């Protein structure tokens, strides 16, 4: 079968957009940590580009998209065996498909890093994401998109479950081994440069058009729809967050608005190509509000998910996955069109993924903690990870 040049162009540029989300994420997170941890935090995203990209072509792709069974793909594409220049996936070259999917594999573990900033050993982080990508990401990706037991059942347009729920839940779970940062809750822990975070937000939104609209895997009407929903949902989410914050604290913060946008991007991800723009506004507003609540709750409960990976990606992903089951009206039908079954399936997909992510993260965390240790010592935490883990200072005179 021949490829479609237009679809190829679209998926390639979408892949590049998703790659740009990594520096975007690095800035988004990096701006929120203290000066002494900014390089460490950014390196979490960058090193994921190194490790997971290589791991993906060696084995990850095969595990996720190889034929395999209901649970996991086979090993037939290890080292990209069986793929060559003329292999085709749908209407695009398989290489384009592998690259596009590889970007998703890269960003997912990097998302987790927001929870662990300022106190995780760099080598343990590397070990963690390497294992996690194989043990959690590859199977869940296979379930939902690669021919596993949820494929064709659960609606997940661009990765609400595969990307955001897995990472958000695992972020919360890994805290078992990390606890809080020293000084948590005092003014000595404030975002060191919110302009970086805003720039990161901009790059993330930009890249997310590739993430969501690219997931149509063709330059067609569905891509246009997904583009449109990815435009309005984060807008609505940012406004919702801002409105609540303004009302509750008297000030609409820039950081809050940025977080709201992100919540909206997460929330619309599973629904992007399945719902109308108007439904997208509702989903966005819901994601913004609910994530706001989750983040407030965190503050009350006192666990230190430092940059709110759970509150935004976990909660936002769950919200989006369930609301997809409510609002789906394009290429699938949800509750509002009378298909309550879909909501059930969505719920099932979410629940299984949550349990699986928790279990695996505990095991991986436990193994790493026992072998190389997860948390750095207090003195190193005081001095900062940039200096102690990387031997650098981000800012010099």
């Amino acid at each position, binding site marked *: 079968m021949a490829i479609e040049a237009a679809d190829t162009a679209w998926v390639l540029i979408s892949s590049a957009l998703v790659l740009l989300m990594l520096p975007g994420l690095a800035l988004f997170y990096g701006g929120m940590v203290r000066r002494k941890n900014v390089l460490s935090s950014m390196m979490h995203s960058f090193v994921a580009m190194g490790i997971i990209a290589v791991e993906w072509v060696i084995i990850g792709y095969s595990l996720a998209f190889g034929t395999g069974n209901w649970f996991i793909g086979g090993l037939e594409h290890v080292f990209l065996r069986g793929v060559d220049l003329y292999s085709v996936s749908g209407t695009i070259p398989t290489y384009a498909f592998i690259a596009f999917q590889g970007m998703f594999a890269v960003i997912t573990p990097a998302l987790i890093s927001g929870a662990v900033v300022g106190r995780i050993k760099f080598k343990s982080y590397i070990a963690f994401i390497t294992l996690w990508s194989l043990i959690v990401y590859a199977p869940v990706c296979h379930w939902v998109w690669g021919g596993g037991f949820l494929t064709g059942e659960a609606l997940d347009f661009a990765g609400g479950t595969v990307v955001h729920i897995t990472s958000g839940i695992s972020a919360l779970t890994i805290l078992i081994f990390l606890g809080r940062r020293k000084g948590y809750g005092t*003014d000595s822990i*404030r*975002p060191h440069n919110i302009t970086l975070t805003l720039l990161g937000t901009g790059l993330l939104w930009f890249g997310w058009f590739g993430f969501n609209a690219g997931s149509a895997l063709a330059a067609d009407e569905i891509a246009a729809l997904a583009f449109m929903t990815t435009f309005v949902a984060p807008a609505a989410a940012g406004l919702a967050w801002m409105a609540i914050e303004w009302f509750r604290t008297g*000030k609409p913060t820039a950081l809050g608005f940025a977080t709201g946008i992100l919540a909206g991007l997460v929330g619309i991800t599973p629904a992007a190509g399945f719902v109308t723009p108007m439904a997208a506004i509702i989903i966005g507003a819901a994601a913004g509000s609910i994530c706001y609540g989750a*983040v*407030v709750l965190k503050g009350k409960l006192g666990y230190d998910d430092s940059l*709110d990976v759970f509150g935004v990606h976990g909660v936002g992903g769950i919200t989006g996955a369930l609301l997809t089951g409510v609002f789906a009206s394009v290429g699938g039908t949800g509750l509002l069109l009378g298909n309550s079954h879909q909501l059930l399936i969505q719920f099932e997909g979410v629940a299984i993924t949550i349990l699986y992510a928790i279990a695996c993260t505990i095991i991986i965390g436990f193994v790493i903690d026992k072998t190389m240790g997860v948390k750095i010592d207090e003195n190193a935490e005081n001095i900062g990870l940039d200096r102690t883990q990387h031997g650098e200072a981000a800012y010099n005179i």
Partner: protein
Amino acid sequence: MKYVIAIIRPERLEEVKHELQKVEVNRLTVSSASGYGEQKGHLEVYRSLELEVNLLEKLRLDIAVNDDFLQPTIEAIKRGAKTNTGCIGDGKIFVLPLEDVIRIRTGETGSDAI
């Protein structure tokens, strides 16, 4: 000669400079600092996490003056730095003895060099 160190609110710098110029004190050195003091309760909210910020941005002025300029200098700083409400956090002035001053360019010393 005295070495005056004043800690003021950043937003009062222009007023203080203005008042100092009026009493012909035209030379000073400014640096940024953070203050911990009485002034508390300034609340910042980061993603709904409320932090009681007690490390506050301040400016520090260093002004070397001849003895007869000391009092006018202090008064000028007070005029410029005080907010209408006279709030906690308006700042402080410290007066230290100064033994000598040297102007590098000319090599002058003592009160001529100030």
